[in-house]
């Protein structure tokens, strides 16, 4: 019997250890989610809303203690330049979002940014408050204080998953990773003397610190101008230097270019009030310190600064302390010179700067020959690639000098299936052309990505509205007159209409660059009738933005429209990837079978029957190869009795006993009603009685040739 208890004991011990192992395994098991959203900024919160609404298993992970922490620091001078236009004269909520650049999308009509601020350019502090309100009212699942330092992809029996490890060692396992970390790392440039500069992230925002100082700012974007604007009244001289000329948002229609709200320096430059702009490369320059009393052979070595700073993730509030001290230390002033002139290794290493090391020695009228008290870099931010393990790291974008992750047209990282990039970091798709890098743009791309996810992982097709072809004209007019998504994400998100006989399916806001993948991404087959794509576009922009001839008013000249206007592309089959690559220069889509531009409109109201409605209807008629005109009941009566089938409008309305009664007494038969065959010769007899509106239309358009579709 002794052996039995021993055996029992052994068994119990084994059992116990097994249980402990199991418990330990359970404890060590990472938190598992279908969706992890990295970052609780506007893009992350926007994604959270759609995931919550669809009842998905998700979590938003945020390293800081509150949402939108970027806005706690930036913009440094605390004024958002995103338009918060709360008075539009309209009550159409969709339309109003065209002029509200800060709100996120939700089903709550009152969850708009205007609840937080009524300023046209709101204070930056308002944004985190708005995000808190958004998360709270929608009950979003956000975990703060989770600083994810490593992201890697693993293959599991159930498929690829992303493992996120935070600084405390906690792991999160995610089937889908939505990266909405924004752009945090200040852009760096390798040039000698970088350490003598200060940076936008840490430079003083108190104008009194700049009294009577000459300031050189490297960069000509909004942060550079924002910085310049704040010190214009104190600094003696503010020069902005960067490779490319300033691009004005009101000329380029790109909101990332210089906004008028920041551009006072253009005035003081053009009115020759000591400020100015200069173009030149950044990689070729050097910043050197030279004492004013230095002779041609300076004797005092300039202060030597330590190396710049470490890379890596995280806010960099403290970093500026390393730089810019050169300004204070050691006396002397800063000169911009060319690296080539510093052939002397000693100079590079901080030995004396000779006159010959400065451009003015060689070119006596060199623009930037005077010394500066401070040099400030305002060169923008880059995506933080460092937290991504090789298995989960999207490549650098081709555009934006690689500052952004490269993503597919549906915002999935290249080579990282299941990892999507949202928000500002996803701007490589429409860099310097549309609004995908900004809240008022990416709130729509986030929705598009969510629709892709719903189709791919849950089998929910892209939402669509079935329409009869007779409704299509009015439906398109409604969209061009109120839709905010295609209006903000012009050239990027477009409505797709799948044409099948007398029916069509209307899909909203599909990323048009992904068109070749529409069937798999959206779950909709492209029918025989082909498809229409409706996008908004700016135009050729060949004319002076404020000069004469800057806009067109003749609908036949619509393709020359300069301002935002609707454009419809008709394809009889789905464009291929190759077609997309071969699209005409500057076009968002390949050359279609037929294209229709709706003439730009000063009021952005595309509702004119002559200039907008009829040309659109005729275009749709050719795509659908059917007559889309509306007819009064009396005409439908005539056409129903004299034709095997009346026109579609009569079939849909009149024959369904819902005709539109005209003035019975005033009714006259339409002119183009040819009598039945056998009476062709009599057709002229009827013509005098016909109303003038039915004369053959379009005949005066000399170039309008009939297209074989």
């Amino acid at each position, binding site marked *: 019997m002794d052996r039995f208890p021993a055996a029992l004991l052994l068994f119990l011990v084994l059992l116990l250890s097994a249980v402990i192992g199991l418990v330990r395994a359970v404890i060590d098991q990472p938190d598992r989610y279908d969706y992890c959203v990295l970052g609780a900024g506007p893009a992350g919160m926007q994604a959270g809303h759609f995931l919550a609404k669809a009842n998905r298993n998700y979590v938003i992970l945020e390293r800081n203690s509150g949402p939108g922490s970027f806005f706690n620091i930036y913009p440094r001078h605390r004024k958002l330049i995103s338009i918060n236009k709360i008075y539009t004269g309209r*009550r159409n909520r969709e339309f109003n979002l065209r002029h509200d650049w800060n709100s996120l999308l939700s089903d709550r009509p009152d969850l708009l940014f205007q609840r937080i601020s009524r300023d046209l350019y709101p204070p930056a502090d308002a944004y985190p408050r708005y995000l808190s309100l958004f998360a709270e009212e929608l009950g979003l699942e956000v975990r703060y204080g989770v600083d994810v330092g490593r992201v890697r992809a693993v293959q599991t029996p159930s498929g690829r998953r992303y493992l996120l490890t935070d600084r405390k060692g906690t792991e999160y396992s995610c089937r889908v990773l939505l990266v909405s970390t924004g752009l945090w790392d200040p852009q760096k440039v390798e040039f000698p003397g970088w350490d003598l500069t200060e940076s*936008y992230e840490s430079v003083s925002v108190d104008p009194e610190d700049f009294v009577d100082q000459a300031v050189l700012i490297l960069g000509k974007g909004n942060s550079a101008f924002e910085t310049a604007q704040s010190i214009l009244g104190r600094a003696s001289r503010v020069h902005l230097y960067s490779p490319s000329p300033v691009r004005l948002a009101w000329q380029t229609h790109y909101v990332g270019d210089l906004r008028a709200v920041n551009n006072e320096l253009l005035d003081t430059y053009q009115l020759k009030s000591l400020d100015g702009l200069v173009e030149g490369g950044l990689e070729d320059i050097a910043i050197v310190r030279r004492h004013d009393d230095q002779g041609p052979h300076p004797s005092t070595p300039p202060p030597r600064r330590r190396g710049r700073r470490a890379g890596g993730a995280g806010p960099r509030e403290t970093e500026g302390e390393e730089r810019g001290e050169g300004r204070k230390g050691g006396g002397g002033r800063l000169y911009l010179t060319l690296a080539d002139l510093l052939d002397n290794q000693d100079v590079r290493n901080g030995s004396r700067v000779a006159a010959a090391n400065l451009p003015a020695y060689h070119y006596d009228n060199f623009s930037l020959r005077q010394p500066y008290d401070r040099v400030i870099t305002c060169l923008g931010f880059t995506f933080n690639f460092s937290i991504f393990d090789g298995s989960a790291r999207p490549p650098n974008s081709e*555009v934006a000098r690689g500052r952004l992750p490269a993503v597919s047209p549906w915002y999935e990282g290249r080579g990282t299936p299941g990892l999507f990039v949202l928000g500002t970091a996803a701007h490589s798709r429409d860099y310097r052309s549309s609004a995908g890098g900004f809240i008022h743009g990416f709130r729509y791309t986030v929705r598009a990505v969510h629709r892709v996810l719903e189709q791919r992982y849950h089998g929910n097709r892209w939402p669509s509205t079935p329409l009869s072809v007779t409704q299509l004209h009015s439906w398109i007019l409604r969209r061009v007159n109120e839709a905010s998504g295609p209006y903000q994400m012009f050239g990027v998100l477009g409505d797709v209409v799948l044409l099948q006989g007398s029916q069509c399916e209307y899909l909203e806001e599909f990323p048009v660059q992904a068109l070749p993948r529409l069937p798999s991404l959206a779950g909709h087959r492209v029918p025989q009738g082909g498809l229409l794509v409706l996008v908004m576009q700016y135009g050729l*922009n060949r004319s002076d933005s404020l000069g004469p001839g800057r806009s067109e008013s003749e609908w036949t000249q619509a393709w020359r429209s300069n301002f935002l206007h609707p454009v419809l592309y008709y394809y009889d089959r789905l464009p291929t990837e190759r077609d997309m690559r071969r699209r005409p220069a500057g076009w968002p889509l390949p050359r279609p079978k037929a294209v229709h531009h709706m003439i730009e409109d000063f009021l952005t109201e595309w509702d004119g029957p002559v200039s907008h409605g009829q040309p659109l209807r005729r275009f749709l008629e050719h795509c659908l190869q059917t007559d889309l005109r509306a007819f009064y009941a009396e005409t439908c009566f005539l056409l129903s009795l004299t034709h095997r089938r009346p026109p579609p409008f009569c079939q849909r309305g009149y024959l369904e006993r819902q005709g539109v009664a005209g003035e019975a007494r005033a009714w006259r038969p339409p002119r183009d009603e040819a009598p039945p065959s056998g009476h062709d010769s009599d057709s002229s007899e009827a013509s005098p009685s016909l109303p003038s509106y039915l004369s053959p239309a379009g005949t005066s358009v000399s170039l309008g040739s009939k297209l074989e579709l």
Partner: protein
Amino acid sequence: VLFDEVRYAQSVADLQALERAAWGRSDVVLAYVQMLGVVSPEHRSLMETVFVYGAKHQFVLTTGGPLLEHMDPGRTAGVWFLHCRLLPGPAGSGAPDPRCPRTPMRRPLSTLDLHGFLRLMEAPLTEVREDPSSVHPHHTLLQTPQLFLFSRPSTEHPDRAVATTLAWRLRGLALLMLGSGVKYLTLTNLEEVVGLFNAQERAGGHEEEEEEEEEERDADMLDDEVAESVFRSRGVSLDMDAVTLLNSDNFLPAVAEHSLTVALFYLKWDAVSMAVLSKFIEVADRLVADVQMGVVDCGEWTDLCAAQAFPSVLLLRPQETAQRYRGMLGSEALHRFILIATVCVCVYPCGHGELDHLGCGSVLLHVLHVGSITLDVCRRSQPELTVANLPSYLALGRPLLLLFVGSEEEEEDDDEWARRETQAVLREVRAAAGGGGEGGAEGYLPCWIHLGRTPAGVSVLRTYLGSLPPLPALVLSQLPSGELYHYPSHGPIVARSVLHWLEGIRDGTEPPTGTMGDDGWRPAAPLYDFLSVMDHEAPGYARPSSPRVKTGEGEEGGGREGGGGEREAQPSRPPWHSEL
């Protein structure tokens, strides 16, 4: 008899010959009527006038063609007065231009207006001795502006000369009265007076001139009759006083306060919506019942407008599900429907399956309608087709043995004799069709159209036959083959010969008169092809690009400026397309 008094002119040469003959003898009245025959109200008005004035003027009739284009390309008038009588002597055959001065009649052709017009032509200038307020012109001229000129005995002759000139200029526009006794009025400029009337005419809502302007731009002419009619009345703002403007804020309380609210959901850029809106307001203006008529602008109040199709009409009662109106979108039908909806509703019994899909409301609507379509479908074997009820009969899918009648221009059969005549013919047709109903051998549905009540029927008949035959006319249409047969118009319509005719059709010995249109409803207008315009005006702009070399989208090196993380160097793009 009267036909002899009236000459017919089709070409310009016809008219010139008539004018030549009338020189110095009589004035000529040229009238355009859309069609001849007693069903044409214009023709009838003209003949009535000929009866009175036939001895005095030469009446000439035209039904259009080149002559009409010659007289009036803009089609602003239907009657012209050719002043030939006062011209000196007969025109020589060699006269280069035999035309007499002419005055168009601005009003539509009606008996009253034509009388007034001719009276005005006769006496453009009247001399009166009374105070202007006591002058009462002939009743036919009540609609005509009157212009009083005042003269003094000392200047009577020159004043009369001026007045005559002015009367000539204003002929057809105004009635001139020359009186005496006023001392302070001076006429300095004839043009001002003429201009006054011309301006008045322009401002008076005459659309002719606008239409003329629009005709200059063919491509911009609206070829959609609904859009065109809405556009044409764009100057007339809709009087929304009779309707409640519903919006997101007042919708629920407004509906709760009324036992019945009828709401129209419309989009202002949708022409059909706007056409229906004006009808809806007409109904609201007429309605005396305690019904709230409301409209919702769906361009603005999107949260109220879940409905996908515009326009739509909903019936809303407190605490009840909204009911969609599925009837004809016209003031007549809607008005009846609302009246019915306000009283106790009971569904009319009707056993036919084809009516099951009709909403209760529309069945009732039709019960009340003239002659009752429901009764027609349910019980009548030989219905009268109207614009409102045709869809119900077409849904039966049977060929129509269609009799066109219309022995009077009025809508109702006032004339007992005509009615009996019609009834007799209808009986014959019904008999020939085998007693009607589905019992007919070929399933023909014998039916009829009254051209007075359903003017669109005239166009149907004209389209069938190419011209208007003598009435009544019998046609077999809606055959599966699409062929049309016209019963010979010379023979009387009696059952025996109709039957014979139908047998001929069945046997294939009767040749079809025509076929139904089968054009598939292709696009109404040619495409304005932007692609070919681009290719022509900006070669290369729309051309597919050659596969791109990986150049980083043309970024030039060296730039990394930026603010807020969104800037870069200038890409190389086509010089004239720096935007997208």
